[in-house]
């Protein structure tokens, strides 16, 4: 039932060797991901060099160059300098500190430089990857990896994670995945793709309506709503393996959302007559009722410390977003602008909540910061924009949009910049849900 992209599991066979003693680097605060005005850092990535005179497939070099460039570009942190502007000297590979003329890079405005070298022997590869600060001429990172040709993508993504950790102080998102709904088969099924939209594979094959995928905080489970029993129930399914439990109480069982750091789920259920949010064990047993109001309460989303829960309620007559203190039970209203605010998604950094607000008869993505409570509109005049979901580092937001006609999955920065389509598939795609870091690379 569940397919995994092949190479990730073979990472165990990859050896990582630190090249030379790590350079003495202090606290590099290159990128502050919580700053909406942070500048993109100009970066250069010359084409990978062949480290042995023969045996290295030029197509593999190009593939490796493309993977690292596209992956780092995806983060939105960098301004990739056009390769046509590079001042390259002909001759031997230029990938190490002593080989590089840093003036060639500072002249074209580059502040960071990534070099890659690859040697291929049959199906085996050695890859050297380095990150330099061109202004100081210092190497910030240097790694050598060994694996098979199938490991090239995982190896490079692993290095990209190191690059982002080095520059932001946080792990990158390169081993995260995105679950979403696609109706290409004629039915709405759950799919999973890599962080950058590559390798989409079906996760469900129920042949009915399946909705609202939600990753557990350890990335090992996905809960979703499905009409397998001809009514909306929640299925909780292991991402690797076939273990599955179901929550099929009378009435609706919808909007599953995991409690951070726990094998605990929250969801809206109506078996007792009213639509309330309940807390359930990861195996689907009801622990307790969380909300208590005559109105509809749904779409829970948890603060990273699991002390507060945002949710949607129409207790004032129209849907608005509220925050409940789990310990005291106290509820306060968060959104006041607009008559239809739904789909709260609490940022993993804790300070903001993304949500969907109806503007006219269309939906747009907003965020609201929890201190000043100021809504910030991130999409506008581009069809229906729905279902915001944060990347695990809180720097990006995945969402669905009808801006090009059919609904598709898009990604933008946490402040609405760099809006781009994630992937193209048959049918329509919706409800993206970004996984936590899966710690694969």
């Amino acid at each position, binding site marked *: 039932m569940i397919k995994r992209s092949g190479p990730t599991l073979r990472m165990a066979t990859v050896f990582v060797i630190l090249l030379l003693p790590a350079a003495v680097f202090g606290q590099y605060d290159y990128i502050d991901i919580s700053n909406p005005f942070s500048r993109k850092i100009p970066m250069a990535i010359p084409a990978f060099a062949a480290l042995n005179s023969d045996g290295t497939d030029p197509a593999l070099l190009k593939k490796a160059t493309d993977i690292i460039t596209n992956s780092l570009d995806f983060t939105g942190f960098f301004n990739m300098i056009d390769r046509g502007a590079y001042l390259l000297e002909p001759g031997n590979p230029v990938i190490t500190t002593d080989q590089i003329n840093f003036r060639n890079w500072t002249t074209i405005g580059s502040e960071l430089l990534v070099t890659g070298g690859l040697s291929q022997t049959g199906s085996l590869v050695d890859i050297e990857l380095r990150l330099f600060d061109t202004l100081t001429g210092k190497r910030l990172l240097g790694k050598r990896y060994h694996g098979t040709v199938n490991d090239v993508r995982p190896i490079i993504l692993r290095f990209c994670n190191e690059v982002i950790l080095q520059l932001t102080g946080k792990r990158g998102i390169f081993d995260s995945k995105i679950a979403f709904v696609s109706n290409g088969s004629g039915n709405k099924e759950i799919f999973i793709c890599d962080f950058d939209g590559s390798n989409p594979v079906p996760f469900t094959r129920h042949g009915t309506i399946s909705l*609202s995928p939600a990753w557990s905080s350890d990335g090992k489970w996905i809960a979703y709503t499905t009409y397998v029993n001809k009514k909306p129930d929640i299925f909780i399914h292991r991402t690797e393996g076939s273990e599955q439990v179901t929550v099929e109480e009378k009435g609706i069982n919808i909007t599953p959302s995991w409690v951070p750091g726990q094998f605990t789920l929250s969801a809206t259920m109506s078996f007792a007559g009213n639509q309330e949010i309940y807390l359930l064990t990861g195996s689907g047993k009801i622990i307790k009722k969380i909300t208590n109001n005559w109105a*509809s309460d*749904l779409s829970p989303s948890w603060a990273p410390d699991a002390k507060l829960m945002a949710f*949607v309620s*129409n207790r004032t007559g129209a*849907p608005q977003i509220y925050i409940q203190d789990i310990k005291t039970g106290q509820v306060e209203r968060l959104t006041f602008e607009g008559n239809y605010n739904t789909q709260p998604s609490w940022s993993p950094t804790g300070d903001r909540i993304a949500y969907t607000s109806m503007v006219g008869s269309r939906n747009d993505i907003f965020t609201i910061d929890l201190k000043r409570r100021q809504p910030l509109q991130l999409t506008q005049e581009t069809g229906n924009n729905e279902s915001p979901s944060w990347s695990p580092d809180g720097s990006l937001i995945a969402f669905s949009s009808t801006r090009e006609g059919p609904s598709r999955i898009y990604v933008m920065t946490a402040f609405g910049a760099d809006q781009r389509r994630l992937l193209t598939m048959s049918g329509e795609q919706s409800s993206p849900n970004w996984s936590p870091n899966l710690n694969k690379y």
Partner: protein
Amino acid sequence: MRKKLWIFLALFLVIPVLLGTVSCAKKTVTKEEPAPVMAPAPAPPPPPVEDKAAKAFDMEKSEFQNDNIYFAFDKSNLDDMAQATLKKKAEFLKTYPNVYTTIEGHCDDRGTPEYNLALGERRAESAKSFLVDLGIEAYRISTVSYGEERPVCTEQTEACWAKNRRGVFVIN
């Protein structure tokens, strides 16, 4: 039922023929008689009472299933028209106490899918409780929400949205 009818008809046709041939044999042949089959045309059998009732049921049933109730945007309360429709449905359910029904709650595709799943259930439940208030047994009525997942119209116009904001009655 069908078989019995055929036997009935067959007897109607065959008996006069037999009688005719018997009487002919006794008489001396004088002139051609009209074919006995043509003779007293057998009256069509009166339609059985159940058949009439079945026809009425079929008509009322299709009305019951095709007559939707409609809702205002983001609302689950029943306006006058919806109430009038529901009263007719209650009559039908009273007339046919063996009928069990499922009320499907649907929404237009504005708003968001999760909230619409909740709204669809509230719409179906509000229709159900109206019928229960009119004396229909609650166990004969189940509800299911389809939210915005099963639109009958996909244009982005108010006319189309209005068609989608509906309660549909299915006989189980």
